[in-house]
């Protein structure tokens, strides 16, 4: 069985770590409403600097694509010498104009860039002190989960979508009754359970876009990863679904380190505890959200957050 699941089952047995209660109440036929207004949500944030243990550490990370890059140069670096550290309990927002390497950097963190032929990585990435290069890629991706820009549930039922993530590779075991509490818990933590509880076996592709994206989040967090990577998770969604997912990100960061790539500066300000600004593959500025947006040190950052270019 998956080690993450064993750990999780032990956690259930311990009374001090109850599964997280539902995030919001939902009435069918009405848009889901965030339980708390934004200003109250603001108050719920842990004070700045109260971050958990370090989860990911990037040391001089560079990524280049072998073929002709978007910049037209052969082997141009998409990401150049980025060093960062990512802590549990905080949300790191990666911002920057298109083509600046933020998505490449994100995909490097769970070695998805390796699927691109010709992609090369330099530097070291440490997950809890272990070099991710030494981990098996499948094991790494179960610990560093990812949510994509476009909601991409599999063409199966809601239950099977989440269960697929929990099942060991292609094995059918563990069986449905054993998986059910884990699936329900994951859906609950993703704030989707109340909306789909009546029929977990309906096709996932029948859900709305926002629900599909929350299903993808449920699927990603079901194996209890340590880090959650999100690649513009709201850019294909409407404002209400976006609000629901942003609130969800707030809740999730209690157990996880979250890295979110976003084009939307307002969103980066709303959800980010730390913000990293990238430009043409370089990490230009890194700091708390307040510092990067209010008192940017680099002139480039100042121009970007003020909307001078983008």
């Amino acid at each position, binding site marked *: 069985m998956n080690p993450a699941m064993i750990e999780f089952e032990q956690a259930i047995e311990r009374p001090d770590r109850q599964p997280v209660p539902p995030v919001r109440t939902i009435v069918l036929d*009405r*848009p889901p409403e965030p339980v708390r207004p934004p200003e109250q949500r603001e108050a719920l944030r842990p004070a700045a600097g109260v971050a958990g243990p370090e989860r990911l550490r990037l040391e001089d990370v560079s990524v280049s694509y072998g073929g002709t890059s978007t910049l037209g140069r052969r082997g141009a670096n998409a990401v150049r010498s980025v060093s960062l550290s990512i802590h549990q309990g905080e949300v790191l927002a990666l911002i920057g104009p298109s083509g600046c390497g933020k998505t490449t950097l994100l995909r490097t963190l*769970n070695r*998805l860039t390796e*699927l691109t032929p010709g992609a090369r990585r330099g530097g070291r990435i440490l997950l809890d002190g272990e070099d991710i290069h030494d981990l098996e*890629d*499948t*094991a*790494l*991706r*179960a610990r560093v*989960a*990812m949510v*994509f820009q*476009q909601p*991409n*549930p*599999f*063409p*199966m039922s809601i239950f099977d979508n989440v269960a*697929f*993530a929990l*099942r060991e*590779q*292609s094995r059918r075991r563990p069986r449905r009754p054993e998986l059910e509490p884990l699936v329900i818990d994951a859906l609950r933590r993703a704030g989707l359970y109340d909306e789909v509880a009546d029929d977990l076996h309906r*096709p996932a*592709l*029948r859900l*709305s*876009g*926002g629900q599909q994206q929350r299903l*993808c989040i449920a*699927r*990603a967090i079901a*194996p209890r990863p340590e880090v959650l990577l999100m690649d513009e998770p709201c850019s294909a969604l*409407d*404002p*209400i*679904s976006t609000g629901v997912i942003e609130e969800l990100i707030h809740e999730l960061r209690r157990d996880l380190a979250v890295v979110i790539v976003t084009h939307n500066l307002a969103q980066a300000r709303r959800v980010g505890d730390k913000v990293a600004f990238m430009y043409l593959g370089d990490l230009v500025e890194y700091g708390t959200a307040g510092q990067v947006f209010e008192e940017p040190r680099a002139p480039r950052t100042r121009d970007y957050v003020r909307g001078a270019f983008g």
Partner: protein
Amino acid sequence: MSTFVSQPSARPTGTRGRGSSIRTWRLSDFLVLLAAWAAGLTLCLVVAAVVIYMGVRGIQYLSPALIFSHPAAGLAQSQTGGFLDPLLGTLLLAAIGIAIAAPLAICSALWLVEYGRPRWLTRVVESAIEIVAGTPDIVIAFVGLALFQLHLFAWVSEVGEGGGITGKSFLAAGAMMSLIALPPIFVSVRNGLQGVPAHMREAAFALGKTRIATIRRVLVPSVRTNIATGVTLGISRIIADTAIVVVLLGDTLRIEPEAHGGLPVLGLLKGTGSSLTSYVYDNSPAGESGAPQKAYAAAFVLLMFVLLLNLLVERIGRAQARASGFVSAVEGIV
């Protein structure tokens, strides 16, 4: 999503813009339109004529006794029995052919789309399958005959009285039939896989799944309907084929599993037989037996099979589109 009260939308009014009426068309455009209509209608008429003629003749001569009785040798038509054996032969051939072709075609399509390395080999495989699809079935039949008369394959077919290997049996014919059924299955599955969006694979990889787990649990289920479509098309190819039956199945009157002794199943597979197509040919005025009424009845049954299979293909395609909203290419089948 943001508004939950639907606004009454402005309906398009019926009036058309200037110049879009057919009366203002140029003569050449009009002629082409006319030719297109004429061609389409002619085709429909030809198909309708075949179906109606065969239907009338078939219903006229078809009787349950004909379907459920064995054929027999006889001088008068009343003595030659029905076509139970050719009917069973057709079904058995289709089963053997698909049992060989489907795994081969699905695996090669999976390899081609999901692995695709080395590049040159994928091109070789694709053109090889295109060549097989384009090869006349009589050529495939003779290649099969040459192959199965080798001593290496003596166990596949009947051994004649003089010790000569006939190379004719259900196994031999079924193996060559699989070549005919393979291209449509391959093309259908390949198109289906190419239609699965790349982000579906990426999502599985990002969940820490291996490539093989992704194929088994995500990709193969997504192309299930393509597999069904391809298999159905393959079956209709097999049951429509005559040359391979005549050359490789022996075109004998009856299926006689007992004649070869030993295990009943192996005896059946090693034995010879006939199919509806060869039965129609033999009983038509062009053939030897000359019982055109029975040929009509058998041809009608055959036609019904093919029509049913075509209907099934259409159904599967539509069910696919309805079931999931997950679009994968069903078109583009040879």
